[in-house]
C-alpha cells in the first residue's frame, strides 16, 4: 500500500473528526457567553440555568476538540515532513501565532470560568468566558489563514524553489481566508443553533409527554410543575422555550450568513481554482448552465459518461460572476490548460519517490466534489427551512406531542454538522492533486504550488502509518461514543444535571465517604 494514500486517509479522518467538535465549540461558546451576559445583566435565574446547562454540554464537547487538536499540529511534521519543509516559512507562522495569541487566552480563561463561579466578581467572571470564546474565534482565524494559503498562496516569493514569506499582512488578509473564515464562523453558528433547537425541542416534548405542560383549547401552552422530578418546575419551561426559539433564530442567522459568504467564496474559487468548481458542477463543457442533476458514472472521472438531465441556463455564470452570460470554462477545456502549465506526469524528482513519472490526474474525484457541494447546500437549506418551521410550530409556547417531530428535531442536529463536513471535504478534495494549489488569477504568485504526492514524509513507512491510523482511529471512535453518551446523559438530566442545587440532596453528613465537610466547599470541582 502506498504510504501516501494511508497518510491522506489519516489526515482526512482525523481532521473531519476534529471538525465535529470545532464548530460546536465556536458556535455554542458564543451562545453560552450571550446567555451568561443576560444573567449578569438581569439576575434572572432562568438565564443562570440556561448558562449552566448549555455550558456543561459546551465543556463536554470542548475537551475532545482540545485533545484531537494536538494531533492536527503534530501530524504535519510526522506524516507530511516534505510539506512542512516546503511551506514552513509561511505556514508555520500562523500556527505559532495561534498558540501564542489564541490558545493561551482560550485555555487559561476557560479554566478561570469553569472554576471561577462564586470566586471571581460577577463581571470579571463573565469577562473570562468572553475572553475564552474570543480566543477560540481568533484561533479559528489563524488556522483558516493557514488553510487558505494552501488554497491560494499569497505574500511569498520563491527562493531556491521554496516559498519565502515577504508580506505577513498579505497572508493574513488573503481574500480566500476572509471569505472562508466568515463562512466557517457562520457555519459554526448554524451548528449551535441546530443543537439548541433539537435539544430544547426534546425537553419541551418531554414536559408534555410527562404531563407537566398541557395546551388549552386554543392550543396555547398551560405551564405546569412536577415537584417529583428534579428541575421540572415552571421556570424550566421558560428555559427550554427560550433555548428553542433562540436556537432557531441563531440557526437562521447562521444559515443566512453561510449563504452570503459562501457566494463570495464561490466567486473567488471560480477564479482561483476553476477546475475544483468545474468538478463541483460536473461541468464538462464550457457554458453558463448550472447542473441541478447529472447522472452517469461520476466515479469514472470520464466526461463521456456523464449526462446532465436538468440544468438551469445562466445560473452557473450568476454564481461565478454575478451575470447570466459569462461562459465558465468546463473540464474539457481546463484540463489541457493545467497539463500544459504543470505537466502531464509527476517530475523525475527524488521527493516523488516511486511516484515520479506517474500521470497526474488533474480532475478531482467528481463523485466527491459534485455530491459534497450538493450535500453541503442541501443540508444547510433543509436545516434553515426546519428552523423557520420550528419557530412557527412553537408560536403558542410549546411543541406538538408528536414523537416523530421530536425525533426529527433531535436528528436534525446532525444536518448542519453534515453540511460543515461536506463543505470541507469538498474544498479539500477539490484542491487535489495539489496540496498547495497554484493560482491562475492575477493575485496568485506564479510557480508556488506543490503536488500532494510530493508532500508525504519520505522516511515514514506504510506500517507506521497503518499503526497510527488504526490506533488513533480506534481511540477516536471510542471517545466519540463516550462523548455522545455523556451528552445524552446530561441532556436527559435537564437543568438539574448541571445545577446541583436543583437536584435532590443525598448529602448525608454521616456518610463515611465525606467526613466533616467544611462550609467553604468549592462551588465546582472535577
Amino acid at each position, binding site marked *: 500500500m502506498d504510504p501516501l494514500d494511508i497518510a491522506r486517509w489519516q489526515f482526512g479522518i482525523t481532521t473531519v473528526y476534529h471538525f465535529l467538535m470545532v464548530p460546536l465549540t465556536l458556535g455554542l461558546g458564543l451562545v453560552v457567553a450571550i446567555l451568561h451576559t443576560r444573567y449578569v445583566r438581569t439576575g434572572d435565574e432562568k438565564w443562570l440555568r440556561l448558562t449552566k446547562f448549555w455550558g456543561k454540554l459546551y*465543556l463536554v464537547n470542548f475537551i475532545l476538540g*482540545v*485533545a484531537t487538536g494536538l494531533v492536527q*499540529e*503534530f501530524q*504535519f*511534521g*510526522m506524516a507530511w515532513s516534505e510539506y*512542512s*519543509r516546503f*511551506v*514552513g*516559512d509561511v*505556514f*508555520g*507562522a500562523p500556527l*505559532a*501565532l495561534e*498558540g*501564542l*495569541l489564541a*490558545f*493561551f487566552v482560550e*485555555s*487559561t*480563561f*476557560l*479554566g*478561570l470560568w*469553569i472554576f*471561577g463561579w462564586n470566586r471571581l466578581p460577577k463581571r470579571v467572571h463573565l469577562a473570562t468566558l468572553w475572553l475564552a470564546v474570543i480566543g477560540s474565534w481568533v484561533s479559528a482565524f489563524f488556522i483558516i489563514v493557514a488553510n487558505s494559503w494552501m488554497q491560494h498562496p499569497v505574500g511569498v516569493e520563491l527562493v531556491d524553489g521554496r516559498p*519565502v*514569506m515577504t508580506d505577513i499582512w498579505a497572508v493574513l488578509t488573503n481574500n480566500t481566508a476572509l471569505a472562508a473564515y466568515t463562512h466557517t464562523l457562520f457555519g459554526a453558528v448554524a451548528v449551535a443553533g441546530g443543537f439548541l433547537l433539537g435539544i430544547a425541542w426534546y425537553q419541551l416534548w418531554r414536559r408534555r409527554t*410527562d404531563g407537566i405542560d398541557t395546551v388549552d383549547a386554543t392550543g396555547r401552552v398551560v405551564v405546569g410543575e*412536577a415537584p417529583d422530578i*428534579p428541575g*421540572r418546575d415552571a421556570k424550566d419551561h421558560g428555559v427550554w422555550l427560550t433555548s428553542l426559539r433562540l436556537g432557531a433564530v441563531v440557526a437562521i442567522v447562521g444559515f443566512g450568513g453561510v449563504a452570503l459568504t459562501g457566494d463570495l467564496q464561490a466567486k473567488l474559487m471560480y477564479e482561483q481554482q476553476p477546475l475544483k468548481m468545474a468538478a463541483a458542477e460536473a461541468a464538462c463543457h464550457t457554458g453558463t448552465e448550472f447542473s441541478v442533476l447529472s447522472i452517469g458514472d461520476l466515479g469514472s472521472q470520464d466526461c463521456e459518461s456523464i449526462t446532465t438531465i436538468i440544468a438551469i441556463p445562466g445560473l452557473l455564470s450568476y454564481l461565478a460572476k454575478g451575470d447570466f452570460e459569462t461562459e465558465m470554462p468546463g473540464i474539457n477545456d481546463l484540463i489541457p490548460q493545467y497539463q500544459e502549465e504543470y505537466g502531464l506526469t509527476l517530475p523525475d524528482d527524488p521527493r516523488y519517490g516511486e511516484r515520479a513519472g506517474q500521470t497526474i490526474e488533474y480532475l478531482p474525484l467528481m463523485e466527491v466534489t459534485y455530491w459534497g457541494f450538493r450535500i453541503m447546500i442541501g443540508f444547510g437549506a433543509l436545516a434553515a427551512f426546519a428552523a423557520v418551521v420550528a419557530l412557527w410550530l412553537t408560536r403558542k409556547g410549546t411543541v406538538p406531542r408528536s414523537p416523530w417531530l421530536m425525533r426529527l428535531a433531535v436528528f436534525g442536529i446532525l444536518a448542519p454538522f453534515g453540511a460543515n463536513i461536506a463543505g470541507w471535504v469538498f474544498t479539500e478534495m477539490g484542491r487535489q492533486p495539489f496540496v498547495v494549489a497554484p493560482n491562475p488569477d492575477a493575485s496568485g504568485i506564479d510557480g508556488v504550488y506543490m503536488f500532494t504526492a510530493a508532500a508525504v*514524509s519520505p*522516511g*515514514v*513507512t506504510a506500517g*507506521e502509518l497503518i499503526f*497510527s491510523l488504526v*490506533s*488513533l482511529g480506534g*481511540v477516536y471512535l471510542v*471517545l466519540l461514543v*463516550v462523548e455522545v453518551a*455523556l451528552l445524552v446523559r446530561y441532556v*436527559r438530566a435537564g437543568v*438539574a444535571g448541571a445545577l446541583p442545587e436543583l*437536584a435532590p440532596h443525598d448529602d448525608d453528613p454521616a456518610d463515611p465517604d*465525606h*467526613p466533616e*465537610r*467544611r462550609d467553604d*466547599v*468549592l462551588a465546582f*470541582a*472535577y
Partner: protein
Amino acid sequence: MEILPTIWFVAIAVLWIGFLLLEGFDFGVGMHLLVRARGEQERRLMLNTIGPVWDGNEVWLITAGAATFAAFPLWYASLFSTLYVPLVLVLIGLIFRAVAIEYRGKGSTDRWRRWWDVALGGGSFLAAFGIGAALALTTTGLPIDGHGDRVGGPFVWLTPVAVLGGLAVVGFCLVHAATFLALKTDGEVRERAGRDVVRMAPVALLPIVGWVVLVQFQSGPPWSWAFVVVAAVAAVLGWLAARKRREGRAFLAFSAFLVAGATAIFSAVYPNVLPSTIDPAFTLTVANASSSDYTLGVMTVVAAVGLPVVLAYQAWSYWVFRRRLSAAQIPAPHPVVPAVRAGR
C-alpha cells in the same frame, strides 16, 4: 552568529522549559493520583489542584511545537517524522489524559472512575516519557541523512538515551508534582506528598542529571558547566527544604533545578538543533534549519508583545486559585439522573 535564529532557539528553549515547569506537575499529579492517592476523596482533591490550570499549561507544548514549525521547519519536519511511533504514543497519552480530567467526574460508577484514573495516570506517564525521549534524542542525535530523513526502521530511535530522557522527565514530573501537592493541599495528602518528595527526589532526579551531564560531555562549552553546578545546588537545597517541610521553598528550588538543568542542556547543544549520528555534515543547526529573517522578525515582534501578556494572565490565574485545598472542601458527587417521570 545568526541573531534571529538564535533568538528563536532561545525562545523555543523557554517554551520547553515553561512546558516542563507547568505541565510537569500536571503530568506528575496524574501519575500520583493513580498510584499514591487513597480513596475517592483524595483522588478528586489531587485532580482539583490542577483542574483550573492544566489546559493553559498544555498550551506551552502546543506553542513549543508550533514555534518549532514556524522558526525551524527543517528541525520540526525531521524530528517529528523520525520519531513517528513515539509521538503517536505521546498523542494518545495526551488525548486520554485530557479527556480523563474532564470526563472522570461525569460518570457515577466506580468502574467508570477507575478506568479514567488509569487513562489519566497512564496517559500522563506515556506523554511525559515520550516527550522526554524526544527531547533527549534531539539533543544527542538521530540517524538522519542529508535531506533530514530517517535512516533505519521505525524503532531506530529506541536507544538507551531515549530511555534516559523518558525517565528523566517522568522522574522530574513525579518529584515536581509531589512538591506541588504538598504546597497546594492540606491534610493527609499534604503529609504524604511531603514525605514522598524527600524519599523520591534522590533517585527520581538522577536520570535528568545523567542527561545533563551526558550532553555536557558530548558538546558543552566550559561555561555551561556553571548551569550544571547551579542545578546541583538547587536540587540539594530543594531536598533540604522538603525535609523541613518548607513547601514553597522546595517548589522554587526544584523549579530552579529544572530551569538550570535545561539551560545547561540547551546551551551545550547550541547551535545544533538535531545532530545527525550518520554524518556531522547532515546535522541540523540553528543556521541551516531556520526560516527566513522576515518570518522570524514578524514572530519576534509578536512574541515580544504577546509572551509577557500570556505570563501576566497565567500568573493571575494561579493567583486566583492560590489557596490550599483540602478533601473536606470537595463537594459531594453530583447526581445526574434523567428528568423523566418514573414508569416511562
